[in-house]
C-alpha cells in the first residue's frame, strides 16, 4: 500500500514537472523548438511559426500556431538545421532565423505597414471574393448581341458554377499568379492579357473553352475588371486568425514529385480500417506524367514508380492535349505532360495494396464487353468504350497488376462486404464494380467484374424491367411512360459504399445543380439493380426553400449511420443527405429527383462572399470531401471535412453546432487539395499516433508560392490538446 502511494506520488510529481517544463519558454525538449512571438503590438497570438529545411532527403516544413502570450512549440522535428520564421494576418513575413531541435527561439514579428502589405498572405478565396459576376437581374443571358451572357445561362448560380467547376477545377483563382498579370506590358489591355493567358499551354484549349461558356467577351471582362481593381490597390477583407482548436494544429509537409508533376490524390490507409499500413509510406497518383508517387515519412525519402499499360504507351492518347493554342509563359511550346495512363485516384485495400483508376489500353473495349457477347452484363447493357481501368501496386511484391474493366473508372471505394467489392465511378452510363475476393481467388477479370445502368423504378413496382424510358441528351428523360421504368445518365463522379446496406452504393454527379444516386445491386445483378436519384435543391426547383438552395456536388462520403455528405463546390456548402427522411424512394414522382428536399441539410462553409451574389455565394471551392469515421484527426468520430481548395485549408464541420474548424496551411500558399484520408499509426499514442493526410493537387505546380521550381507537397495534419503540447 505504501509502495503504491509512493508510486502514485512519483507519477503525479513527474506529471507536474513535465507540465511546468512544457509551459516554460527556454526549455525545449531535444526534438522541439519553442519560444515566444512578439511584435511592436506585444505578444502575437494565432500566428504561424514555420520551420523549414532542405537538409533532409526531401524538403520538409513543419508549422504550428502561437497560443496565449504568443508562445509556440514545434514538436518532433527530425534532426536538421531549420529556417524558422513567422507568418500571420496583420503581419508581413519575418526574416528566417536558423535553429536546431532543442533550441528556444524568441521571434520578432513585423507588423504590416499597410492593408496592402498585410493582404499579400491572405488565402486565395479572400482575393477571389472581390470578383464581380453579372448581377442576378441580368439573367437569363441574351447572347453576344444582347448582354453578352451566354443564352443557356438562366441564373447567376449557373454562371458562378462555371467560375467554380470550370476554372477552379484545375487550380486556385485568387492566388498571386492568377489575380495579378505579371506580363501586362505585352498587351494592349488587361482584357487582352486574359484572352491570351487562358490559351496558354497544354490545358489552353480547355481554359479557353471554359471562358467561352460564359459568353466569352463578358467572361473576359469580369476577370479583367477584377485584375484591374487589384492592380489599382483594392484589398480584400482580413481573414480571422486561427482561434480555439485551430491553434492546436500541427502540419508537416514533405515535397514529392517534380516541378511539373500534378499529383492528383493520395492514400495512406484502408478507409474501412485506418490501422492498415500503420507508419508506412503514403502514395499519390501523378496524373500528368503517369507515376505512382511514394513518400516514406519515417525516412523523408520521396520516390516514384512508372505506371504500367498493357499496350505501347505511344499508342494511347492521354487526357491532356498534345498541342496548345498558345505557348506557356513558363515552358514555351514544350510538351511537359504525357499521360497515357492518366492515373486519377488511389485507394488502399485490407492487404495494403494500392488500387488506382488508370488507363491500360485505348478506349475501344474487348469483345466480351460489347453486344453479342455471352457476358450477362454485356447482354443486359453492352459497353463499346471505356476510359481507364483498375491497376494496383502491391508493396509486398513491388509489382503492379492490371485489371481490364469494360466500364470507365474515375474514383473507387471498397464496400464493407465479404467480397471486398470495389465500386467505381466514371462509368458514364453505368456503375461498375470488381469482386476483389473473386479476383484474388481466380484471377479472372471478366468473371470478377459487373456493371449496371442507372435505371429508376418509376413505375413503382419494386423492380427494374425492360423496356424502359431512355434518357434525353441532357441526362433527363424526355418522354416518360409511367408504365415503364426510366434510365437516367446521372454522370457518376464521387462514389461510396453504404455501411448500413452492403448491397448499396452511392454516386454523386457534378453536373448543375448536382445529384446523388443510390444503386441497390440486389442478389442477382444486373437484373436486380435498382437506382434512386436525388437532385441537390436549386434554383431549378421552384419548390426548393431558400435555405436549402445550393449547387455543385462533387465529392461524396458517408458516416457510420449512413448519412451522405457532399461538398457543394459551386455554392460553397457542405451538405448532408439523409435518405431515411424521404417519404418516397421510387414511383413516377421521382423521375427528376426532386422528391426528397427534406433529406437535405446545407451548411455554408466559412469565408468571404463573392461580391454581388444573391443568395450569397462564398468564394471558396471544395473539390472533394471526406468523413473522418474513425476519429483519425482527433476531432471526434464521423466528422465531415471539406477540402478548402481555394483557401489553403481543410474545413472540419461540427454538424451539431454548424461551427467550423479551419485547418489552414500557411506555407507554401497554393494548397489546392483534391482529397484526404486519415490513418491511426498507434492508437495508444494520443494525438501523435494519428493524423490526416492530403497532397497539393494543383494542376499547375508553378502556381504554388515560390513559382517555377517548387514541387508538390504531401501533408500530415495533427490536432494536439493545446498549442504547446509536446
Amino acid at each position: 500500500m505504501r509502495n503504491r502511494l509512493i508510486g502514485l506520488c512519483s507519477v503525479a510529481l513527474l506529471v507536474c514537472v513535465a507540465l511546468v517544463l512544457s509551459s516554460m519558454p527556454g526549455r525545449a525538449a531535444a526534438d522541439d523548438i519553442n519560444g515566444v512571438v512578439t511584435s511592436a503590438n506585444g505578444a502575437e497570438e494565432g500566428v504561424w511559426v514555420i520551420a523549414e529545411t532542405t537538409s533532409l532527403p526531401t524538403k520538409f516544413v513543419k508549422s504550428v500556431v502561437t497560443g496565449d502570450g504568443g508562445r509556440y512549440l514545434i514538436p518532433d522535428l527530425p534532426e536538421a538545421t531549420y529556417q524558422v520564421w513567422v507568418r500571420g494576418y496583420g503581419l508581413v513575413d519575418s526574416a528566417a532565423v536558423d535553429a536546431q531541435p532543442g533550441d528556444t527561439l524568441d521571434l520578432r514579428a513585423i507588423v504590416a505597414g499597410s492593408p496592402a502589405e498585410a493582404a499579400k498572405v491572405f488565402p486565395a478565396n479572400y482575393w477571389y471574393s472581390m470578383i464581380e459576376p453579372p448581377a442576378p437581374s441580368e439573367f437569363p443571358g441574351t447572347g453576344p448581341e444582347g448582354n453578352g451572357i451566354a443564352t443557356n445561362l438562366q441564373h447567376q448560380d449557373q454562371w458562378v458554377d462555371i467560375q467554380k467547376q470550370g476554372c477552379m477545377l484545375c487550380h486556385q483563382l485568387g492566388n498571386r499568379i492568377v489575380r495579378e498579370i505579371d506580363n501586362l506590358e505585352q498587351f494592349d489591355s488587361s482584357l487582352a492579357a486574359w484572352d491570351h493567358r487562358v490559351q496558354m499551354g497544354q490545358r489552353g484549349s480547355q481554359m479557353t473553352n471554359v471562358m467561352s461558356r460564359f459568353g466569352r467577351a463578358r467572361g473576359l471582362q469580369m476577370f479583367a475588371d477584377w485584375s484591374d481593381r487589384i492592380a489599382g490597390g483594392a484589398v480584400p477583407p482580413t481573414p480571422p486568425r486561427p482561434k480555439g482548436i485551430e491553434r492546436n494544429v500541427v502540419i508537416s509537409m514533405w515535397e514529392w514529385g517534380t516541378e511539373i508533376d500534378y499529383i492528383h490524390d493520395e492514400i495512406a490507409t484502408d478507409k474501412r480500417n485506418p490501422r492498415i499500413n500503420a507508419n508506412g509510406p503514403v502514395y499519390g497518383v501523378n496524373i500528368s506524367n503517369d507515376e505512382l508517387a511514394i513518400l516514406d515519412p519515417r525516412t523523408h525519402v520521396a520516390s516514384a514508380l512508372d505506371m504500367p499499360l498493357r499496350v505501347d504507351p505511344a499508342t494511347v492518347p492521354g487526357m491532356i492535349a498534345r498541342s496548345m493554342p498558345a505557348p506557356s509563359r513558363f515552358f514555351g511550346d514544350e510538351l511537359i505532360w504525357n499521360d497515357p495512363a492518366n492515373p486519377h485516384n488511389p485507394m488502399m485495400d485490407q492487404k495494403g495494396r494500392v488500387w488506382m483508376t488508370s488507363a491500360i489500353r485505348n478506349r475501344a473495349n474487348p469483345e466480351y464487353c460489347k453486344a453479342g457477347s455471352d457476358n450477362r452484363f454485356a447482354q443486359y447493357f453492352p459497353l463499346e468504350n471505356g476510359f481507364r481501368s483498375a491497376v494496383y501496386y502491391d508493396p509486398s511484391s513491388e509489382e503492379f497488376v492490371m485489371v481490364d474493366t469494360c466500364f470507365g473508372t474515375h474514383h473507387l471505394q471498397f464496400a464493407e462486404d465479404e467480397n471486398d467489392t470495389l465500386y467505381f465511378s466514371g462509368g458514364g452510363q453505368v456503375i461498375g464494380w470488381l469482386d476483389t475476393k473473386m479476383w484474388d481467388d481466380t484471377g479472372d477479370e471478366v468473371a470478377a467484374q459487373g456493371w449496371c445502368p442507372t435505371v429508376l423504378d418509376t413505375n413503382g413496382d419494386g423492380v427494374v424491367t425492360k423496356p424502359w424510358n431512355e434518357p434525353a441528351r441532357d441526362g433527363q428523360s424526355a418522354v416518360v411512360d409511367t408504365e415503364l421504368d426510366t434510365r437516367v445518365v446521372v454522370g457518376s463522379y464521387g462514389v461510396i459504399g453504404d455501411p448500413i446496406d452492403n448491397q448499396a452504393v452511392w454516386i454523386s454527379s457534378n453536373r448543375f445543380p448536382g445529384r446523388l444516386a443510390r444503386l441497390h445491386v440486389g442478389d442477382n445483378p444486373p437484373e436486380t439493380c435498382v437506382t434512386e436519384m436525388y437532385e441537390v435543391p436549386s434554383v431549378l426547383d421552384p419548390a426548393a426553400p431558400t435555405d436549402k438552395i445550393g449547387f455543385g456536388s462533387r465529392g461524396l462520403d458517408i458516416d457510420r449511420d449512413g448519412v451522405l455528405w457532399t461538398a457543394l463546390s459551386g455554392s460553397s456548402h457542405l451538405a448532408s443527405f439523409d435518405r431515411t427522411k424521404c417519404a418516397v424512394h421510387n414511383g413516377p414522382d421521382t423521375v427528376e429527383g426532386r422528391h426528397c428536399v427534406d433529406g437535405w441539410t446545407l451548411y455554408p462553409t466559412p469565408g468571404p462572399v463573392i461580391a454581388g451574389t444573391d443568395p450569397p455565394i462564398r468564394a471558396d471551392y471544395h473539390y472533394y470531401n471526406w468523413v473522418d469515421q474513425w476519429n483519425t484527426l482527433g476531432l471526434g468520430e464521423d466528422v465531415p471535412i471539406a477540402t478548402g481548395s481555394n483557401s489553403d485549408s481543410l474545413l472540419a464541420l461540427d454538424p451539431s453546432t454548424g461551427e467550423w474548424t479551419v485547418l489552414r496551411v500557411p506555407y507554401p500558399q497554393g494548397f489546392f487539395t483534391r482529397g484526404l484520408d486519415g490513418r491511426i499509426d498507434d492508437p495508444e499514442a494520443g494525438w501523435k499516433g494519428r493524423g490526416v493526410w492530403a497532397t497539393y493537387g494543383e494542376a499547375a505546380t508553378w502556381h504554388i508560392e515560390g513559382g517555377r521550381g517548387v514541387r508538390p507537397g504531401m501533408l500530415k495534419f495533427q490536432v494536439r490538446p493545446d498549442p504547446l503540447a509536446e
Partner: protein
Amino acid sequence: MIWKLVSVVVVATVVGGVSFAVAQPGVTGEWEMRLSTQTGVTTWQATFEQDGDSLAGEIDLGDNEILSVDGTVEGSMLKFVIVVPDLDGDQPINFEGELTGDTIKGADGSFSWYGTGHWEASRK
C-alpha cells in the same frame, strides 16, 4: 466576229461559274468522318449545317454520345469545335479542313483521347 465569240465564251464562263457556285450545297449535309491516329481509324457520323459563314450541326461519336458542332466557314476552309464532356473538365476538340466537292481534307491535329493525327470526311 472573233470578239463576239470571245464575249459569248466569257459570259458563258462567268454564268456557268456562278451557276456552279449557286448549285454548291456548301458543307450542309450528312458526312462520314474518319480520324486516323495512333489508336487506329475512328469513324463518326456528322451532320453539318452551314448558314453563311457559320457552321453548326452534330457529330455522333457512337456509344450514345452526340455532340454539337460550333464553327465557321471561310470560302472552302472549315473550322469547328466539339466539346466532349468529362469529369475532369470538358475536353474541346478542334478541327480544321478544306472542302472540295464531296470530301473534306482535314488538317493534322490533336484530338484529345482519340489521338493525334489527321481527319477526313466524305459526304454520304
